[in-house]
């Protein structure tokens, strides 16, 4: 995890990345009244990265879902540009995995849409001050995800193929392993997810956010 450095400043500069104009504008209006200067409003990932590079905001408020690429991708791209970037995810996605993924990728906060504007501004300040914006709800999810038996990369790969309707044999051919190996993976997946069959495994994985369709 990347540490967030403390930056002393009066006026907090924020880049808002959200595909929905009302959200962007609403946030911008509210932030302005909380002494937060909005350096830019981006509707997609590409614009967001470009604005970030130009403005270098203190905090980036990033939606997980963007029309061109995923929020995580953008997060990674931003951190690549500047590893000290403070990014707070603002999203309505509630999957355990996505919380974990965001935090893992280096997000400093994970907030759910529906948060009050004032509270959000508060959280941004906290993040800008080097804190974390992880409400209890989010921490719970994170804890649960970490606590659960995670599927390995390989298992997720196998499960992805299964969710695409591949047979063991086809999956084995695609992954260049033997069919028995696939069977073993499937067995492990079923055990870890406590699923009774492959379909249920896919459903559970989708619910937990291991898989996206």
């Amino acid at each position, binding site marked *: 995890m990347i540490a967030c450095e403390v930056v002393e400043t009066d006026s907090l500069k924020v880049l808002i990345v959200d595909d*929905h104009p*009302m959200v962007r504008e609403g946030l911008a*209006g*509210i932030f302005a*009244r909380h002494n937060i200067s909005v350096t830019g409003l981006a509707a997609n990932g590409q614009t967001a990265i470009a604005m970030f590079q130009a403005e270098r905001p203190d905090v980036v408020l990033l939606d997980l879902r963007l029309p061109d690429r995923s929020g995580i991708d953008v997060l990674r791209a931003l951190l690549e540009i500047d590893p000290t970037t403070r990014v707070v995810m603002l999203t309505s996605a509630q999957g355990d995995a996505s919380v974990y993924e965001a935090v893992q990728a280096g997000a400093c906060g994970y907030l759910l*849409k529906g948060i009050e504007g004032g509270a959000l501004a508060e959280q941004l300040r906290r993040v800008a001050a080097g804190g974390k914006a992880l409400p209890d709800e989010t921490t719970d999810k994170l804890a649960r995800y970490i606590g659960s038996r995670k599927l390995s990369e390989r298992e997720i790969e196998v499960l992805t193929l299964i969710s*695409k*309707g591949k047979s063991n044999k086809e999956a084995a051919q695609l992954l260049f392993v033997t069919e028995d190996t696939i069977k073993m993976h499937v067995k492990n997946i079923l055990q870890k997810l406590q699923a009774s069959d492959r*379909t249920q495994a896919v459903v559970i994985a989708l619910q937990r956010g291991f898989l*996206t369709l």
Partner: protein
Amino acid sequence: MRQARSGQLTEVRCRRGKLRRLAFGALALAEFLSILPCGRVAALEPQSEKPVALRQEVLKTWTTEQGLPQNFVTAITQTPDGFLWVGTNGGLARFDGFRFRTFAQDGPPGLRHAISQLTVDEEGTLWIAGSAGLFAYRQGRFHGVPLGRNGASPLEGLLRCAHEKCIWAWTKEGFFRVDNETAAAVKLSIPLATVRDVRQDRQGRLWIADGNGIKVIASGKIENVYPLPNARLLYLSNDGNIFAGDGHKLFRFERSRFIPEPKKGPDEFVQMLVDREESLWMASGGLEGISRFEDGKLELLGVKQGLASNDARVLFEDRDGDMWIGTISGLQRLHRGRFRSYSEQDGLPARSQYDSIFEDKFKSIWVGTLGAGVWHLEAGRWHGFGVAHGVPRGQIRGFADGDSGPIVAIADYGLFAYRNGRFHKLAGVPDGYISSPVRVADGSLWFAILHKGVYRIYRNALTSFGPKDGLTDDAIWALVPDGKGGLWAGGKTGAFHWNGQRWSREVAAPNAVDAIAISRTGGLLLGTSNGLVYRNGKTNWTLTQEDGLPGDAVISLKEDVYGDIWMSTAHGICRIPHEQLQALSSGKADWVAPEVFSEDDGLRSRSILPMGQVTETLARDGRPWFATETGPVVADIAVQSQSLPQAVMDGISIDDAHFPPGNINVTPGRHRLAFTFTAPASSAPEQMRFRYRLLGWKSDWVNADTVREASYMGLAPGNYSFQVQAANRIGKWGPVSEAIAVELEPYFWQSRWFLALVVMVLVGIVVEITRRRTMQRAEKLNLRFQERSAERERIALQIHDTFIQDLTGTALQLELVGLQLEEDPRVAQLSLTSLAARMREMVARSRDIVSYLHSMAGPQFSLLDLLTYVEAEFRLTDAPVYKLSSIGAARDLHPFLRDEVYSICREAIANAFRHAAANTIEVKIAFLPRKLTVTIVDDGLGMSESIRRGGRAGHFGLSGMQTHARRIDGTLQLESAPGCGTRVTLEAPISGPLYGRQIRFSFLRLVGRKDEHGQTQIETHGATRGPHDSV
């Protein structure tokens, strides 16, 4: 069968002697009553105590006409199974009493040559000596037995060993002991060239006649020599006597020498035999036929008495006591029949027709003829009374007892009574066709006259009875006393009864009643022109030819003391045993198997004239007498053992090939399988019946009646077992024959393993088909699941992207408005106005989404409509230009095809919108005559090889598109490279079996009938076509 004084009867239950006399006495007293001391009396005393004369025995002849291979009979013997074996100069034959079976087809060729000797050893093996050597026959097969080193010299003799399982056989060169087909030479210290005859006594000594004398050899050494010039015949009788003969004189061995016997046969003889009754038989072999010496009396039987030839050379007594005679002109048998037939030889007139019979009160028998007077049996001879004695030339129709002799009823002449050696006409008897005179206990004489009625003479007064007395029938044929002072009369409409006062019809019968008898069971037996009728109030039955009678018309009938019925029908005389009648009365049987008598039983004629005359009478000694057409006969009613016939297999033929009986394997294919069978019988072989079954095919017995063959065609391969059973003349089944196992081999494709293989293959195919189907179904389910998941996910994301975002935005805006209200209410007001406008947009957008969701379900939308929605669904920015065009006349697609095509296109368009970053996306739909082509082209980033193969995470992607394409028999092509855009081409047939079937099905359902050509009529079926889509 020769009934025996030697006591061979099987059913004798009473001891002879006292009891029998007692029984006889009771019988004499009570005539028909059955107060006998025990159920069955053995033999009633025959009328004459004398043995049956040789010429009274039934002589039957068989020649080549009956199947004998040759008429010159050289040897006769009988095997334990009952078959008689006959050796002739023309080969060997087996005789079952019915048919001679030769072995020309399935025996060694030597059996067709002259046979010289036959013998049966202790084990039942038949030994055959002939010009072709020695053969053994056992278990249905012949084996040749070589004798000595050069088995060429002809066999001189054959002899069964005493007490040992072997035979002796000798030639001019050697003397052999043959055991189990191996011949061992035995050294005898005498020259074999002169040996004429050999016998072995009970002590095992060999007696050899060599023309000079008799030599006795014990343990290979000569023990004794008895000089007897020209001795060439030796015989050991069952009682241990040793006889020798020189062709003219007979000698008996007694106290160490042969002493001549007084003359007991013809002047010349070539064979002798002492039968079980100790009578001495001789075959003259020349001029005098055969002889029998019995009880000091010599009888000769020659050509004049019916012998086929005076040159008889072989004598053989079979196990039933019948004497078989082999002559040079045929095979003959002497058999003691049940019947004694009287003929000219007994004093009767030649060539007369016999009509009626009677026993008078003095127990002597009278017989009436047509025009030849009446005849009376006295002391074994017949004496006649003709015109000279007052008997006119007429038809004698019946007798009754008179005061001093019988009264005779003569057609159209009236009644004539015997008195002082003459017959005198009774006065006052009306003219006419007179029938059935009978005298009853009160002394009255009854008789019937055709069309006139019944008359009674009582104390010299004649009374006539007719309709006025209750006798409504004017054709009365039979009058029988009822034993209680009354009388039964049989007419053309039934049976009438006279109770002393009146006549009344007791039994109505549709047919004329010709005979009446009162059964000891109390019932009434009526012989009608259509069967035998029994009435006793409780049980009634009727028997006709269909039920086993030899004929429908019963002419006469009597019940003997055993309860057996002796009757004559138009087809002969028969006996129905008591047990069969009981079974009939108790309902256990509905048919009978009467013993039908033939010439074999001693009848000279089977014919009895059916003219309403009295043709049968039961003598006071219990024996029934019949007036047959050719003479009177009397039957022995003694119980005779009716041995049960043992059916045996005779041969098997497969198509045209013959095989001896035995288990058999049949090669694969369709064959005709025939089994021949028989059963040896000594009497009435023609009446023997058979039944058989083929287990494995049917377990029921098949009635063959008198046919001795069963054949089968087209039996399925498998194992079968054939059995046969024979019944004697009274319907008693003998033991079941040994089963013949038949194996019909299957072709390999009929075999079990092949069947199993086929079943396994079929099961395999079914399993494989099921497996594939299951896999296909699993794939379909997966795909469907995947589609649903994707659809849900899409809807979820859409909700997220639209409604939640909208609400989030709205919430934020409202929050902002709240802040603005504090700052500047005018600004806030503007914001609110703008927010309200935006929210209306949101409502519109939401309505679009909802309407799209609806649209997915409706079949009313064309492919073009759906693809138009896709744009709205995926468009995020203004960036790509979306062009949708259609070539050719747009057609309604089958909903299934439409959905599949839409799914593929939607995925491809979504890819282009989401990932391609394209400037234009072009979708072209071409409706060609038989297929549909959709091309989706973008000018975007293109796809790398890995994405093309593995698909992009989160989408059902290319593999899903391919699966969808396969489901509609379509092809999907993807051309793409990074930076060069992507082109997806889908080709799918519009008409094809996939849709045809379904459409045709719905068409048929609509029309309700199959079209004539069995072709689909999609083209003309309006339901499948709709108005053209507009682009």
